[in-house]
């Protein structure tokens, strides 16, 4: 009897409590994200700090006309409709592209997205006479949309863009170009500094708070036009923590819930404490890019092939705590453009030694080479240990490598100038070590393989010039049949590998470490990540 009364009393007390709890407003879900940058990337529309910054203040606040599918991790993404529902090249004039814009989309400030907004944004970055022109945003995106010659509004929801040349790969440039609100810029006194703190795009997140170098709060845009990409978290707080160990400590301490690139030596501790490590194939390669200019030791294909056979890539992956994939070429094997190169990148010291002997190099007559490297920085992975590993590996095949170690910013200068430039050739530098983004056909292949992009006209650093490859690249630009385009891109990649254009070492896997509280995160095979997939 006593127990019945007790149970009844408990029920009477518990019922209103349960009712009260169920009617409590939904508590805000918050994920704190420790990012590897020293500052929050630009929030005005075109993020600075490279491809990796687009996931933070680019594709969160804004949308492009054509988007990259970043909410899938099991295969490489593809181009998908963004603010343009359709894009077509004019069959009569292949330089003209028509974009049909999405109707009913509003910017965060409530203004309408339409053709005027697209033209205004193109003027913002390409027309230095326009009042809204912003040199900083222009500098970020102009090199990424080099094909655009002109543009105009056809009607409220149609925009026409004309390219400089026939360029079938043009759509790949557009995920980089993001659309901001002209009305917001007007409302904030046409002041980009004010827009930085109160930006307005059409994206799945709105910027709620910005403290430079300390935090940016992104809150869910519940009215986002793409219901399939509604954010799974109400608020994501971006916290810049440039030091890798500090980032890991902040995760272990519970100050953040997810971090980029945990240091390899902390990973065992993280996994032992039930933190999750997530990584995926990422369009990145860590190579030595050879000079093929006269006088360079790398002009001999036997030497280039020998070095590719002399490096134990799996040992380097181990050195990196498993946070990399051994390279088989410029692209990862899972890429649709990898193909079937006849030259297999593997660890085969006897074959490497034989090639070096054929090329005339022996212990008594070693090959001497000076290679410029960075001491570290974005995309450089564990630069110094990896380079020292390779230095020792190449010593095994009678190559004496001398490093010129510079800061990454300085390395960029050497890169842009090309192998022929005095700052490189004049100092005896014949190869450069720089991590490359390989996100799309241009970034992965054509910019390195086409003779028209030999530096300083582009970043074909070493001066690679293969007529067959040049011809294929010209054809790619004029081929609108995607299957044919893929075939040509595959051919280009196969040729690059067969010519051993670079010493390809590893592909980064862009690891993330997450607290057990974070239940969902889809890591795309790209530098563009979709933060809407993060869920508690």
């Amino acid at each position, binding site marked *: 009897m006593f127990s019945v009364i007790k149970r009844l009393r408990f029920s009477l007390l518990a019922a209103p409590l349960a009712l009260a709890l169920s009617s409590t407003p939904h508590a805000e879900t918050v994920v704190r994200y420790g990012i590897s940058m020293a500052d929050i990337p630009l929030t005005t529309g075109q993020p600075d700090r490279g491809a990796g910054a687009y996931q933070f203040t680019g594709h969160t606040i804004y949308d492009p006309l054509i988007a990259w599918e970043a909410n899938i991790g099991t295969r490489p993404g593809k181009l998908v409709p963004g603010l343009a529902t359709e894009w077509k090249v004019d069959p009569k004039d292949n330089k003209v592209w028509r974009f049909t814009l999405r109707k009913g989309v509003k910017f965060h400030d409530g203004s309408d997205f339409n053709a005027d907004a697209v033209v205004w944004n193109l003027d913002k970055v390409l027309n230095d006479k326009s009042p809204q022109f912003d040199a900083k945003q222009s500098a970020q995106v102009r*090199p990424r949309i080099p094909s655009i010659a002109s543009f105009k509004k056809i009607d409220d929801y149609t925009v026409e863009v004309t390219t400089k040349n026939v360029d079938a790969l043009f759509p790949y440039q557009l995920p980089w170009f993001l659309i901001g609100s002209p009305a917001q810029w007007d409302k904030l006194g046409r002041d980009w500094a004010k827009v930085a703190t109160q930006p307005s795009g059409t994206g799945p997140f709105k910027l709620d708070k910005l403290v430079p170098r300390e935090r940016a709060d992104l809150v869910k845009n519940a009215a986002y036009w793409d219901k399939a990409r509604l954010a799974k978290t109400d608020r994501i707080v971006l916290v810049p923590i440039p030091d890798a160990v500090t980032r890991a400590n902040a995760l272990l301490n519970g100050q953040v819930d997810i971090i980029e690139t945990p240091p390899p030596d902390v990973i065992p501790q993280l996994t032992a404490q039930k933190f999750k490590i997530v990584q995926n194939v990422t369009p990145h390669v860590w190579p030595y890019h050879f000079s093929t200019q006269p006088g360079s030791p790398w002009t001999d294909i036997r030497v280039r092939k020998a070095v590719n056979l002399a490096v134990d890539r799996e040992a380097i992956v181990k050195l990196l705590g498993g946070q990399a994939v051994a390279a088989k070429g410029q692209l990862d094997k899972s890429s649709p453009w990898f193909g079937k190169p006849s030259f297999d990148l593997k660890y085969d010291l006897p074959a490497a030694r034989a090639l070096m002997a054929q090329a005339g190099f022996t212990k008594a007559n070693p090959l001497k080479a000076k290679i410029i490297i960075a001491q570290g920085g974005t995309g450089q992975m564990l630069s110094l240990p990896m380079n020292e590993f390779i230095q020792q590996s190449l010593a095994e095949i009678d190559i004496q490598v001398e490093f010129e170690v510079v800061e990454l910013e300085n390395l960029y200068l050497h890169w842009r100038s090309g192998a022929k430039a005095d700052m490189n050739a004049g100092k005896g530098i014949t190869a450069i070590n720089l991590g490359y983004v390989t996100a799309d056909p241009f970034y992965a292949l054509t910019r390195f393989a086409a003779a028209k992009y030999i530096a300083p006209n582009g970043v074909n650093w070493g001066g690679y010039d293969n007529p067959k490859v040049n011809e294929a690249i010209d054809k790619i630009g004029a081929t609108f049949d995607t299957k044919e385009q893929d075939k040509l891109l595959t051919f280009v990649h196969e040729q690059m590998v067969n010519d051993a254009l670079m010493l390809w070492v590893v592909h980064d896997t862009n690891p993330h470490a997450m607290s057990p509280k974070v239940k969902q995160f889809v890591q795309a095979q790209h530098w563009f990540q979709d933060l809407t997939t993060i869920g508690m």
Partner: protein
Amino acid sequence: MLGYLFKRLLYTLPIALGVTLVSFTLVYLAPGDPLNAIAPADAPADVIEALKVAYGLDRPMPVRYGLWLVRAVQGDLGASISTGRAVASEVMAAVSNTLVLASVAAAAGVLIGCVLGALAGYNAGSWLDRLASALSVVGVSIPHYWLGLVLTIVFSVKLGWLPAMGAGPGGSGEWLWDGEHLRYLLLPAATLSVIPMGIITRTVRALVADTVNQEFVVALRARGLSRVAVFQHVARNAAPTVLAVTGLQVGYLMGGSILVETVFAWPGTGFLLNTAIFQRDIPLLQGTILVLCMFFVALNLLVDILQPLVDPRMGRA
């Protein structure tokens, strides 16, 4: 005294001008391109050229220096190439964060250093002296960043008592002198205080040990003065040198420690300098260096003013 003050003020003018010249030109000596702060790594030559013109980097160095100096005198340090934000406000925000950190670190360092140094000096040759000397050597020699990491691993990661990084739960803009915020301050301030503590311990120890053996101290003791009264005389004799060393140490701390502020992601001047250096953000670098140098000049001026107040002989000299 007024003449002394006027002379000291007059000296600061050429020093300040020299500081502006050095802080403007020195940053251009480092290899690399300032436009890396704004342009992607693969930006073509025409984009780079257009940017050079847009940011005035195509002008000769003396012209750039002159324009910068005129603006700097009016308090306008230009805008960051990387972010477009005003350098003056960026630097002042960072200075205020470093001030919070440096003031606590300096207070702890000076206080502990003076106590340890005085104890060691008074008891020269004893175990206390050896202990204090050992601590000061450790303080001076221990790498900052290493100590910071060790403290974080122990107190943040293992024990979970203190935050591992940051300047407060809501960021530095919402700094308050309350318990919650002080928890964020403890580890970086403790790390930063170790060097001034070591240096001041050694300085005070040497001065006190030297002074207590001087004849006037023997005479004071012979007159039957209490230990406290004797100590007051010793302290007054040591004060000018300690003041000078403290001024220098506080100046160093105000410059922010790049390593400590990076290890603790503390948004101060060191963190700002680190960002500016790696981004080749020249206006930000120039502005930060200038403001920090001026702080140093002002601190030295303050020490010069305070010293004759403590030791009137210096004013007469």
